[in-house]
């Protein structure tokens, strides 16, 4: 039996890799917390070597099943920087609409199907669905609107095929976009109510100080472009990322842990960071809903990230509709991006946070090497720290209860599926 289990774990390492959390307590005191959330990009970095720069949107889209657009957009930003090309405004606007679709789809899955069940005492989303049918049906419709927007612009619901370095293969017509605009409008009321609903959930009493890191754009709530900002005042361009941030290998995890070079401290990116650093740039309706829901200017309780995600869903709907309103199809659908020997850097705000790419290109555009730093990888060190603090305050809970609360805490940062499906390995060792 044990032998069989080892074999399956190895196999799954090729399919997805393992996620695990280990908590060690002695005499009711926390000795150690180790966290491992699966991150795929390392073997993709190797796979990208030798491929053409034009293939990067199609390959990187497959890194993440729920955030393909984020990978495509970050990779394209890096390639366009390398080749010294800036895409024209219509391309950038259409990219932002596409990205809004992904924010809606990803956040809706996380908020309703993965995180909300924790707050209501359910093992998972489908258990919750039996008792909260209307809520789940509305959430699925909301998610579907996001997916449909991705399909119309991206050409396919997952792994968009219409995206290329320089722009798109074809810009959709207004007629093609009209039906999905209606779906987005239809989902807006539910999205607005969801902000209040998430804020009404029972929140564990838990607060922390974070060093937040997020993109910032002068004109809009940063998603697909911007400079990097932080709680302690960083203001840098993509090419400066590695001067300020470092990754180190941690023994217990296949992921690398990130920290700020200046302080050696762990930091947090994602919705909480964006809310703290850029909230004034949200749409009036989203900001109003957030304030009515009692979200403080800086949210220190990571569990309340579920409310921030609900706010961002509402914002993404608003923003997509705003841009769709003024949208006109454009030709050519892409600008030329002639390759050259160069290193390019690019970043965007994936639903989970900052996603940075770097590529070194040869003269003909062949990828010489690639580095991809995903948000969950950047957050792992800080999430682990957070879990340590959380377990410290809840060590007296019985194992089952502690396990559930820890999962709920991890899901404040990462949309991982419940351990009930036996995928996330959770161990408590009380000696």
């Amino acid at each position, binding site marked *: 039996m044990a032998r069989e289990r080892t074999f399956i774990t190895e196999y799954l390492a*090729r399919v997805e890799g393992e996620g695990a959390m280990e908590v060690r307590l002695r005499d009711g005191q926390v000795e150690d917390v180790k966290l491992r959330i699966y991150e795929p990009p390392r073997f993709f970095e190797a796979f990208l070597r030798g491929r053409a720069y034009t293939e990067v949107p199609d390959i990187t889209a497959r890194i993440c099943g729920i955030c393909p657009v984020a990978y495509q957009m970050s990779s394209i930003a890096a390639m366009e920087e390398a080749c010294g090309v800036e895409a024209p405004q219509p391309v950038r606007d259409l990219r932002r609409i596409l990205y809004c679709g992904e924010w809606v789809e990803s956040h809706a899955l996380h908020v309703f199907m993965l995180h909300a069940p924790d707050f209501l005492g359910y093992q998972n989303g489908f258990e919750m*669905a039996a008792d909260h049918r209307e809520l789940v049906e509305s959430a699925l419709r909301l998610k579907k609107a996001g997916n449909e927007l991705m399909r119309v612009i991206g050409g396919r619901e997952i792994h968009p095929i219409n995206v290329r370095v320089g722009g798109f293969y074809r810009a959709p017509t207004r007629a093609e976009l009209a039906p999905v605009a209606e779906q987005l409008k239809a989902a807006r009321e539910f999205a607005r109510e969801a902000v209040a609903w998430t804020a009404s959930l029972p929140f564990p009493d838990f607060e922390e100080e974070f060093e937040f890191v997020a993109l910032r754009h002068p004109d809009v709530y940063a998603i697909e472009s911007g400079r990097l900002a932080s709680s302690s005042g960083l203001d840098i361009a993509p090419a400066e990322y590695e001067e300020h941030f470092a990754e180190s290998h941690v023994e217990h995890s296949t992921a690398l842990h990130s920290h700020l070079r200046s302080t050696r401290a762990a930091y947090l990116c994602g919705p909480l960071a964006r809310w703290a650093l850029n909230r004034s740039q949200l749409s009036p309706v989203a900001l109003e809903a957030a304030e009515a829901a009692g979200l403080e200017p800086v949210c220190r309780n990571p569990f309340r990230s579920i409310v921030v995600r609900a706010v961002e869903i509402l914002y993404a709907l608003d923003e997509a509709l705003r841009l769709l309103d003024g949208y006109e199809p454009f030709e050519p659908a892409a600008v030329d991006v002639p390759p050259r020997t160069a290193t390019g850097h690019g970043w965007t705000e994936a639903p989970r946070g900052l996603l940075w790419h770097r590529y070194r290109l040869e003269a003909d555009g062949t990828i010489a090497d690639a580095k991809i730093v995903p948000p969950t990888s950047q957050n792992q060190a800080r999430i682990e720290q957070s879990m340590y603090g959380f377990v410290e305050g809840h060590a007296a809970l019985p194992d089952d209860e502690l396990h559930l609360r820890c999962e709920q805490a991890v899901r404040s940062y990462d949309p991982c599926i419940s351990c009930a499906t036996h995928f996330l390995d959770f161990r408590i060792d009380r000696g």
Partner: protein
Amino acid sequence: MAHEGECSPLVDLWSGFESVVLVDACASGAAPGTVLRFSADGAPLPARGMRSSTHAFGVPEAIELGRSLGRLPASVQVIAVEGLDFGPGEGLSPPVAAAVAAVAEDLRAGA
């Protein structure tokens, strides 16, 4: 119809159908090319082998979601073909390709 990625949309895809046959790859530990058959008609699918991601609903979860919402077709049969290599690349490995061809043939013949 084909679907890829996160599986919660399956609930909508198979809405209105009486009977669904879903064909997918799996990683259960069986020999590559092995064809496994499951029925979702009375009980959940075994989760082992059919997990797809730490971050998304897979086929078993989508089925349970449909069941909870009262939207599962009267008959849902799952045919899973054991994969060999899930790494990046193109095409099916020979034992898997052969198994898939046989499954397709069976389905066309109404089996």
